């Protein structure tokens, strides 16, 4: 118990003093998670919109696949991407393994289904009368799509926030594809795992506090947007 209390007190001091190593780790985490969320948003939002807005054969099957992919373990994605970017993989010549780019690729693949599925849910929740209203006012297909998108905006932002929350706290992909290289690919979660292995809890607890703080902030934002949807 003393160990935990001592670690916690030291960790608080570390957070307050903005310890250089801790700040670097947090920065790497924020950067890779930010990029992966951005790319997943750029791919997942239009994909989700398309699936929700259009009618085509196999639509239900696609939604079922996407919902299944929501639960895919990070290590499976890590293994899958590793097979492509390792030296023997088809993308081996780009030398991506153990770089931040590798983490971004893996994390993007992890959360594309999250963004897509939640965008589909957000669009599907929009009252069909918005579509009818836009059409009767003379809107073409693009203008009608824009109206639906605008009405679903809070739900789509909530989807992006949820996706960011998923990648900032994942460890499997960052460890397998990033390699936990200090000052380069070490993220909050991989650093915590390493510090735990070393038996040095101070930095691990400090990073845990920052991660929890970020998660809390994400959840606050998420609920704020969910509240806007309901209103």
């Amino acid at each position: 118990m003393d160990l935990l209390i001592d670690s916690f007190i030291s960790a608080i001091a570390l957070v307050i003093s903005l310890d250089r190593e801790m700040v670097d780790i947090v920065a790497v985490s924020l950067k890779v998670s930010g990029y992966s969320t951005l790319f997943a948003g750029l791919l997942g939002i239009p994909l989700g919109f398309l699936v929700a807005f259009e009618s085509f054969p196999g639509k239900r099957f696609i939604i079922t696949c996407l919902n299944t992919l929501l639960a895919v373990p990070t290590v499976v994605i890590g293994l899958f991407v590793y097979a492509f970017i390792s030296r023997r993989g088809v993308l081996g010549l780009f030398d991506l393994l153990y770089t931040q780019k590798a983490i971004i690729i893996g994390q993007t693949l992890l959360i594309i289904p999250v963004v897509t599925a939640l965008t589909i849910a957000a669009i599907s929740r929009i009252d069909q009368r918005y579509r009818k209203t836009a059409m009767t006012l003379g809107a073409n297909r693009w203008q009608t799509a824009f109206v639906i998108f605008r009405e679903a905006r809070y739900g789509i932002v909530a989807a992006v926030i949820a996706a960011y929350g998923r990648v900032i706290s994942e460890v499997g992909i960052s460890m397998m594809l990033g390699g936990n290289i200090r000052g380069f690919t070490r993220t909050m979660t991989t650093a915590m795992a390493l510090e735990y292995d070393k038996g040095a809890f101070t930095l691990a607890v400090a990073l845990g506090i920052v991660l929890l703080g970020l998660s809390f902030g994400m959840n606050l934002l998420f609920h704020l947007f969910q509240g806007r949807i309901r209103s």
Partner: protein
Amino acid sequence: MLFEIARLTKKYRDRTVLDVQRLDIEKGVIYGLQGPNGAGKTTLLNILALLESPTTGTVSYKSQPVQYSEPYLQRLRKEVVLVDQLPLLFTTSVFKNMEFGLKIRGIANEERKRRIFKGLEMVGMEDFVDAPAHQLSGGETQRVAVAARLVLKPEILLLDEPTANVDIASAQQIREAALMARRKWNTTLVIASHDRDWLYDVCDQVIHLFKGRLFGTGKENIIFGPWRHLSGSLWEKKLPDGQCIRLSDPPEPGAVAILQPAAIAGGSDTHPADPDVHLLEGIISRLTLVKNSSDILATILISTLPLTVKISHRKIQQENLYPGHHVQVYYDPHAVSWL
């Protein structure tokens, strides 16, 4: 002629919800669309609004057959607009909602503003121009929705139960605004409503829709079964107060009877005994003036069944036939048609 509809059917899966042999919609005319819930009014309005396509049959607009391809329909939808039964406004400001259709039509900025203020003024909503649309009440939403269509100066304005879910003041403003569109721009109006008095007051023509089919003028009495065989060709339906409606030869016990108001007579005088005439007693509940005529439609409550009877203005005056007055109603049981 704006719309010509011929041999149109609309099916959802195997259920036929609309079966219209012929319907013409002329320029500048106000049409009332009447019928019970589920009669197909909204489906017909959606087809006229070019939001749904018929299963079979032809729809012509300005003598050209409508092609159900999106670019073609988008062009026509700029002339034919619909106000839904429960309209929605986009979650932006009232101004932006009003502006949406005008922008699509490429109306210049200054003209847009002028029309928006004028349109909001028509429905008494000019003070709400910057208000967030989603914070408006039901009546205010309906008024803005109507105004957003009126500013587009459409050829045809389709109104689906425009006053069903609003307060009296909002209903009045919606009615006046719709009629102003006809006066100012010769807009054709098609109004679906349960408000019979309003429809007979303002409409040039009332169309009655029942079980997806058009028939009559909406003044007909519709009497639902079940019918019990009495004797010979006569069948009857017992009313809660013990009186019986007697009619002849229903095709089946559950058939729906149509009795024309002109086939029924009513008044305070006792009808001479006539074996061919059936007599009922009731109370006048409402009198409605038929537009462009001196005839009055009296709604006479026979137990719980309201019957519409055509009575001349002179007879109303002579016999003091006002609401609340007890009267006798007599009709020939053979003067019936069946659905």
